[in-house]
């Protein structure tokens, strides 16, 4: 019986899990430089050990509203995609958890479309639900600055 290891974390009170193999790093982002004119999902850019990392605000990405206050205690998950480094800013980091693949349930049909697009399924834990996050989809912030915004 196959199983997968997940790094768990919370965003806006919801527990999420991302496959361990996708997560390069967990770090406390310091001094994020905001990028004016960029989409609200982009929290800014930051220096992680000499590399420039693009910080994605997971709250904003999930339509939970951009995090304005409380910048101090947040954590970030370091992810690599297409040779670029990203930091997904989350509220709290949890633990590493091994879960059986066959207990993964499909997304509920009434899940918010944005959430459904980044969720691979749901695990029922004893006390709460864990949403399995598709990190690749999470980073697909599309349609940037398109249109005629002058």
């Amino acid at each position, binding site marked *: 019986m196959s199983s997968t290891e997940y790094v768990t974390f919370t965003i806006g009170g919801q527990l999420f899990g991302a496959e361990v193999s996708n997560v390069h790093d967990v770090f406390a982002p310091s*001094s994020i*430089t*905001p*990028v*004016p*004119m*960029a*989409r*609200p999902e*982009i929290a800014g*850019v*930051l*220096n992680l050990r*000499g590399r*420039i990392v*693009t910080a994605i605000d997971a709250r904003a990405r999930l*339509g939970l509203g951009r995090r304005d206050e409380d910048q101090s205690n947040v954590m970030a998950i370091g992810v690599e995609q*297409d040779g*670029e480094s*990203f930091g997904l800013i989350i509220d709290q980091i949890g633990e590493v958890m091994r879960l059986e693949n066959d207990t993964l349930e499909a997304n509920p049909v009434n899940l918010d479309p944005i959430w459904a697009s980044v969720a691979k399924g749901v695990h029922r834990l004893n006390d709460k639900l864990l949403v399995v996050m598709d990190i690749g989809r999470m980073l697909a*912030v599309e349609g*940037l*600055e*398109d*249109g*005629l*915004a*002058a």
Partner: protein
Amino acid sequence: MDDLLSEFLTETAESLEVIDTELVKFESQPNDEATLNNIFRLVHTIKGTCGFLGLPRLEAVAHAGETLLGKFRDGALEVTPDAVTLVLESLDQIKELVGHLESTGAEPDGDDAELIARLEDMSINGPAPSTPKPAPAAAVVEPEVDLAHDSDLADADDEPIDRGPNWDEALGRELRPGEVSLADLEAAFNSVDGPADIENAKPAEDPDKPAGGDNVPVVNQTIRVNVDVLEDLMTMVSELVLTRNQLLQMVRNTDESEFKTPLQRLSNITAELQEGVMKTRMQPIGSAWKKLPRIVRDASNDLGKKINLMMDGENTELDRQVLDLIKDPLTHMIRNSCDHGVETPDERKASGKPDAGTINLRAYHEGGHIIIEVSDDGAGLKTERIRQKAIEKGVVDAAEALSMSDREVHRLIFAPGFSTAAKVTNISGRGVGMDVVKTNIELIGGAIDLRAIQGEGTTFIIKIPLTLAIISALIVGIGEDRFALPQLSVVELVRTGDEREHKVEKINDTQVLRLRDRLLPLVALSDVLNITDGEGPAVDENGNAFVVVMQVGDNRFGLVVDEVFDTEEIVVKPLTKMLQGVREYSGATILGDGSVILILDPNGVSKAGASVEGGVQSVAQEGDAQMTYQDDKTSLLLFRAGGMEPRACPLGLVTRLEELDAESFEVSQTGTVVQYRGKLMPLVHAAGPHALKTEGRQPILVFNQGESVIGVAVDEILDIVNERMNVELADASPGVLGTAVLKGKATQVIDVAYYLNQGDPDWADAANKVEGEIDTRSVLLVETHPFFQNMLSPLLSAAGYNVSIAEDERAALRMIESGARFDAVIADVDQSVTAARFAEAVERSESTANAARIGVSSRQDAEPTALGQSIPKSDRHALLSALDYALKMRGHAA
């Protein structure tokens, strides 16, 4: 592809470039043995390698070419342009074969019998209609052959008849002309000194690198390194530099530190390492010039001109990345100089010049830049011709063109869509012109300018950075944020203030700076980047501000920032793909203190600045630079609002296009509003209030009038078109002026005034209040077309004028004669005859003798007329300001 083959391809490409250059040199100095030997040796090497690798087609062509070259070398054949052309032709064939080999790994099918026949014919019969071609040969396989044998065998007399002796048993075929049998070879080998050169052992770092020296090859101590390795090395050194900077910063803050000395040493070593690694990326500019002699030669043949190319500074080094990017622009410029610069020999003689023209190519270092000059001693630029052409092509309007200095006119050749070539030639004038050159050079942070002296020639000056990886940047601050501005675009820094030498002044709401008798438009960086959390306006009430004067192309403007820090050498790092769509940035960098800052793209900032200040014009031009200028056409913004069919509104009425976050919309008593640039902007949707989005981005057309702003939301902005607009006024639904056929589709043209009133019933009143201190003045609008009546009259009333409309001049005169008083008369001047008569009548009439007169035109580039300047009907800003100005002038005069 196996290693051997790819090695061969790289080497052959190098050799072919050298041969190209050398042959042109050889043609002009047929007695230069060293050059010929070099060519011969290279061709021979190519041929030999082909044989070794089993590439019969290449070998055959190369062989035939080599034979002909042999004749040159022996003096058996005179060096004529025809012969050289034939050799060059064979080189081109080799290049093509090699190209095919490179892409497919095999020689293409077919044969080159025709070319080879001509080559052989030339080497046998002398300068007949054809010329030989050089063949590549490799010293590796085939021992070099005494050429005396070649010429014996290829002797014109016995070759065609005497086949027998040429049959070679070992090869199983006839020997080619110039080919020797193995037996002969053996004999020759024993009796003659061996080949002097083994050339192809020479490795080079890059295919583009010039193959060793001019004549005699020197065995260089070099090694081929993959470019990726160098790039990686460069990246790592960049990181090292950053870490070093960080350390230095830390130690700088402490007075005494035991780290100081070792750190100083680390710093020096790092600097040297950086320089060393940079050097590995450097290549002499000469490698980008190698194709040029050939291009000039071919061009002069095609054009029937005599042109010499002089090159100076080939050894000037620059980053290979930059080098790659300037190759094409340079080639184009050289072609251009051949075609347009240098005159024909007859013309030159007539003006007392030697019949051969000269193109000078120079490169040298200046500061952190390389300057490349391309100059010709031709006729210079025909100022009047350019002026006329620019007006014809709609690059500038007539009035503007007339007020331009010669130098400014010359610079028009860099304008998009400009090409003065009367006929399209093979050489230049393919529709892409100097504007492409300019764009390409600006893309790498360079600049281009020109100097032309009538009758003496034209010089183009290109200034490009040495490298793109590390740039010098000015660090500026807005509120808490810092940004890097590439120093290349920064002209100077100015501190302004009411008490200072430089003052910020205002025209309407536009801030300008008077700087040495020039007016410099000011753009606040905080506006460009939409940063609102700063401490108030960048220019405070005492006019204090930091202004960074920027030069982007021909555009000079002042960028207002809160703070200016220092200049730093920064390592440019690309932004994530997600952010590459944001045109304001060109990258990011890590500063010495470890913080990341964004690098501003001067081009993007300039464009964004234009839309902050100048309304939507730049958008229109981006859409299609040509379209704005065509006769009788109106620029229309196409959009969708409720339903799939497009709707349109004259672009001239729109101040800005925005996309705002629907979540920021607020519902007030009077309707939906949104905070916009520090004000509340009423918002209506062109398809009714229910169509407003509640989430995501909402495209909005922003209309501005005096102090008030209104936003009309639409579903989607589709396009900007420039078409002749025939509006059918049949449609009676509210908010619709009529229907026009645009881009082949029936399109509803919306009545902007309707929406403006809907969104803010006080719209017109509000505008009136602004102008309130002045008495309401009456304006007579003479306009035949109902569409423009409908467009202009709400506009004028909104601006606080009392508008009377006359359908034509006769009706207008009747109104004037009936004694109605008008402060201003606005009339259509497209019918110039009637316009002139009308102008006279207006002047004669007592009631309007003092009235301001303004001509409007549906064309964008109308000539001034009897009614004064003519203003495009779609340009509401121009119309209102002209009206305002005219009335003020009249006030003074009265």
